[in-house]
């Protein structure tokens, strides 16, 4: 048995205390995950409501345009957030974590961003970055990218009030022509074991997807469109233009929540596999320790009996 008794014992103890830490962190992450999931549920009620109304109104607005003009016409009427203009600059909002110990969460998000840039032929001259989270901020700065907005220290369960500034900034920059398209790169939470990294186009808002949403709703609920059911105050177009920013904000906030949920899930998973690994190591070390102890005892007995034989 090569390992000395004391050395094995020291490693065993240190692995045990590491395991204690990772188990505790796993529990903390799971608790945070539960909190953020509850919050997401209440947010979802709000987001669905806003989306349903906007979709219904946009649909009836399109119906009123008799000779189905192009979507540009719609954009001009009801707000610049629908504006599909020639793309000179692209904005990417990247959501990463502030802390480490979240497994491959950050590297996956960054990888998905870089893949998207490669696919669309984006480089540092035609892309600006908005970054939430330390890891992403540091990475893209080191790459020499143009980071126009950064934020760190978003809390574990971000409320709308807390991140309102970030959300509005992202929408505002689109309207100010800082960029002509806004992508958000984040990790979408599927369930506790699975997340999908995605880089999606958020702005301009796609009229087509709203139309599809409304079609699906009408098919399912067998209700009339909202315009014929409700009286609108003020008129249709004004109503839509006041709803659009609210909708855009709710989309961006939804992505932030989704990313946070995924971050906690990923952290809980990373800590779980760390604890599992520690368990493996502990059982190997325990075996080594027992063997070393047994070897020591055997040696001792041999020596004693050896001594006894010598005396006879």
């Amino acid at each position, binding site marked *: 048995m090569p390992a000395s008794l004391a050395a094995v014992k020291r490693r065993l103890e240190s692995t045990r205390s590491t395991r204690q830490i990772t188990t505790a962190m796993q529990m903390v992450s799971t608790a945070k995950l539960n909190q953020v999931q509850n*919050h997401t549920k*209440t*947010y979802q*009620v*709000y*987001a669905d*409501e*806003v989306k349903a*109304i906007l979709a219904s109104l946009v649909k009836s607005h399109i119906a009123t345009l008799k000779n189905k003009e192009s979507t540009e016409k719609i954009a001009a009427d009801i707000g610049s957030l629908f504006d599909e203009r020639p793309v000179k600059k692209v904005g990417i909002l990247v959501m990463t974590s502030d802390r480490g110990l979240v497994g491959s969460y950050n590297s996956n998000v960054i990888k998905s961003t870089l893949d998207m840039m490669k696919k669309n032929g984006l480089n540092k001259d035609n892309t600006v970055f908005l970054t939430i989270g330390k890891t992403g901020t540091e990475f893209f700065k080191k790459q020499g990218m143009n980071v126009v907005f950064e934020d760190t220290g978003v809390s574990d369960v971000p*409320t*709308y*009030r807390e991140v*309102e500034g970030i959300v509005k900034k992202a929408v*505002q920059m689109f309207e*100010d022509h800082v960029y002509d398209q806004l992508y958000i790169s984040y990790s979408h939470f599927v369930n506790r074991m699975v997340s999908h990294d995605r880089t999606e186009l958020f702005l301009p808002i796609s009229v087509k997807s709203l139309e599809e949403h409304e079609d699906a709703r009408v098919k399912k609920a067998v209700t009339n469109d*909202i315009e014929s*059911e*409700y*009286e*609108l*105050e*003020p008129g249709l177009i*004004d*109503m839509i233009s*006041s*709803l659009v920013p*609210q909708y855009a*904000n*709710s989309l961006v*906030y939804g992505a932030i929540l989704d990313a946070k949920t995924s971050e906690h899930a990923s952290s809980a998973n990373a800590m779980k596999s760390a604890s599992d690994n520690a368990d493996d190591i502990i059982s190997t070390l325990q075996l080594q320790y027992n063997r070393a102890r047994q070897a020591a005892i055997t040696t001792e007995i041999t020596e004693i009996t050896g001594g006894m034989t010598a005396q006879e």
Partner: protein
Amino acid sequence: MADATFHVSIITPDGTVYDAESTMLIVTTQTGELGLMADHLPLIAALKIGELKVLHADTGDHDTFVAVNGGYVKFNGKDAEIIADSAELQANIDVQRAQNAKERAEQSIKHAREVNDPDELSRAQVHLARAVNRLRVSNER
């Protein structure tokens, strides 16, 4: 005769702020104040940054005052839903914070006027309107 009641709920991204029965609801829409009672015509109205009053004549409870930042109200005759990106009940308004926000907004309005930045000006005006609205609602009796 007791007034008919209807259900009022205020929904924000941070959860449902308020959820109760009422006899009359007064909101500040973009075209002016609007009172809603049970069986009012189905209506969707865009709201301004303003005050919202929920009256409880039937139970004799105190009226509820809420500071609402935009959004809209959707009323189908029986249920009124207010969907806004933020709304605070009178009791939950942080007066100190609103006061600070008001001063900050006034300063940036001044600054925006000096450097002639229409975007900053309009944003600062929105902030000011919100702060003033919160302060006003917090002083209602």
